[in-house]
């Protein structure tokens, strides 16, 4: 049984404008730029919308509709930071998240280990989103389908959650106007002309009748009116890289101090990876030096790292490999080749198999500390010849061993 949560909030560009100009909080605000520009309205505050301003209108038309409105340009940097914060907060609470400019969609099907009930889970999501948006409380709707959840969120108030119990989607939608249906305006006009004034009336018709009249649009309208749309939550695509940079107060030459700063950067990056459910298959460390030069080191960890604890042994190795020629002024740690963190089926018949990743990380760390030739794995040579010493070869111990089922013949 699918359960979808939709949170509707003010446009991120509008929230960014409010952060920069708090005095405009209750004023009519239009985001998009100066009215002289031939650009569309990106977002409008509630006061501006009350005057008839809608997103997509030309800015000049918005000025005619609401002469008292304040026109501000979109703050791209702040908007992206808000988006990243909201995405991090939501990904920490829900397995699949889709974030738009003015709404967020989360899949909260099943059970959550920390939240016993669906209402508690939805409240946690709403709280996390409110905190990420700097106190902007969203209106939240929870239902079995996306359209019903979106409608429920619209019927809810900020700081409130409207839940539609499973199986009651059609009853919830029945009294609502047909203007909510996401179909062509011509279809809506003809439905009104036929005397169908609410979604319940559309849902009561036979789908074949609607298909005869409106074709595929009729079937879509009937499905939406019954709350049976099956539009899934499309998770946000993972970023290609995540990086953390720490600028030091002054040039630092002490290795222990650099190590301490690297730990801070590592903790921060690991926290971001963990909250997004990502793992990094490559790490790069850049030590920016006082003389304008930089010492770099990169490494592919034996097991993809997705938390600060998993990153730290790799970062220690990077610190040993990078050799700055002058005092360090800034550190930059970049995680690349990001992918979704996935579980691994443990070989239940092989004792200690659950610790395989931890062992691989430890072996890599020992290689950094004691030398690459200290922990090794033997491999039988394919063509040994007659010399006994050529029967095998050594490979680094951190090289991932193929998981082999117990009892298989080699």
């Amino acid at each position, binding site marked *: 049984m699918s359960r979808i949560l939709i949170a509707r909030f003010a446009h991120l560009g509008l929230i960014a404008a409010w952060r920069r100009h708090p005095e405009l909080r209750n004023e009519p605000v239009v985001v998009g730029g100066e009215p002289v520009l031939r650009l569309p309205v990106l977002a409008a505050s509630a006061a501006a919308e009350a005057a008839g301003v809608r997103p997509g209108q030309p800015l000049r038309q918005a000025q005619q509709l609401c002469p008292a409105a304040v026109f501000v340009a979109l703050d791209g940097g702040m908007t992206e930071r808000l988006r990243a914060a909201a995405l991090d907060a939501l990904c920490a609470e829900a397995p699949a998240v889709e974030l738009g400019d003015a709404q967020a969609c989360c899949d909260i099907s099943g059970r959550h280990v920390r939240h016993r009930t669906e209402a508690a889970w939805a409240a946690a999501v709403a709280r996390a989103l409110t905190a990420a948006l700097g106190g902007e409380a969203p209106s939240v709707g929870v239902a079995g389908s996306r359209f019903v959840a979106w409608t429920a969120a619209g019927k809810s108030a900020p700081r409130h959650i409207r839940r539609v119990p499973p199986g009651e989607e059609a009853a919830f939608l029945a009294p609502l106007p047909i203007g909510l249906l996401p179909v062509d305006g011509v279809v809506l006009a003809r439905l009104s002309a036929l005397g169908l004034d609410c979604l319940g009336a559309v849902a009561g018709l036979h789908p074949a009748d609607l298909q005869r009249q409106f074709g595929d649009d009729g079937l879509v309208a009937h499905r939406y009116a019954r709350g049976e749309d099956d539009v899934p939550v499309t998770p946000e695509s993972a970023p290609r890289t995540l990086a953390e940079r720490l600028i030091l107060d002054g040039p630092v030459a002490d290795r222990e101090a650099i190590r301490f700063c690297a730990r801070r950067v590592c903790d921060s990056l690991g926290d971001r990876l963990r909250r997004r459910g990502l793992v990094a298959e490559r790490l790069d460390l850049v030590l920016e030096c006082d003389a304008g030069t930089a010492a770099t080191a990169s490494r592919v960890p034996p097991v993809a790292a997705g938390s600060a604890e998993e990153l730290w042994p790799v970062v220690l190795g990077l610190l040993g490999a990078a050799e700055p020629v002058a005092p360090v002024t800034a550190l930059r740690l970049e995680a690349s080749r990001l992918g979704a963190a996935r579980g691994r089926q443990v070989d239940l018949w092989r004792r200690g198999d659950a610790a395989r990743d*931890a062992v691989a990380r430890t072996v890599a760390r020992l290689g950094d500390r004691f030398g690459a030739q*200290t*922990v090794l794995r*033997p491999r039988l040579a394919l063509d040994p010849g007659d010399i006994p010493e050529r*029967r095998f070869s050594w490979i680094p111990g951190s090289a991932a061993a193929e998981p082999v089922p*117990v009892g298989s013949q080699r």
Partner: protein
Amino acid sequence: MTVAPAIPTPPPSSLTETVTALQRRFGPAALRRGGDVVSSTAWATGMPAIDGLVAAGGLPCGRLSVLLAGNRGVSGRLTLLQALAAVASRSMQVAYVDLVGTLDPGFLADLGADLDACLVVRPDQLAPGPGLAMARALVRAGVPWLGIAMAPIRRSSAAAMEHAVSALAGAVEGSRAIACVSAPAPLAAPLAYASSLTVECASLGWQEAHGDVVGLRVGMRTLKSKVGAPSGEASLLLRYPRPQAMGEVVGFPAVVGHAGGDLAGLVAPAVAVAG
């Protein structure tokens, strides 16, 4: 009617509190009551000669077991350690700390080891300190089977090794790993103290067939056992594996044994599983 004089005993609560405080400060193994049963699970090696040496039925988990050379020269302890590592590698990951520098992975493969499951640790200059530190790190990470081939330790460095051995014993106990150490005689004091099971291996002579040496007869004796009552002596035949040709499937090590008996019944060719 006579009344037995009352024996002055300290209040049980204060004794219990003292024992608890000492265990909290120095570790749970620092102080035990004589009647306390020390729970210890065992890993059955599949070799009756070894499994029968202790009442637990195999090498104890979470403890250090020591295979000690009983005499100078050949004792078979290293071959036995490698045979045990080969058996373990078939079902779990194995770390072999080679502080002697004599490990031949080809020989290990001939014994039937799954080399993909074997990690070999060879510290720089075969120094025991770094070797034991690496062994400890691997055990803490979760390696379930650890084998250490120790070289003779100079008397001057024995004291420095005490911390490394005690830390390793603590790590082994914490992760419930199986740790087997092969050590030459005389046994270094730190290792003798940390060992829970010490088995002395002594050569009883070569096993020959058609004029060729095909194995070594080894006598085993339990010198120390903190995991159960020892069961006397045992002897086993370490049959050297026949070098396998490429493409031939190797099987389990050809180690046959017999607890507490003579070797009369063991001279017969051991069955080497192949194919």
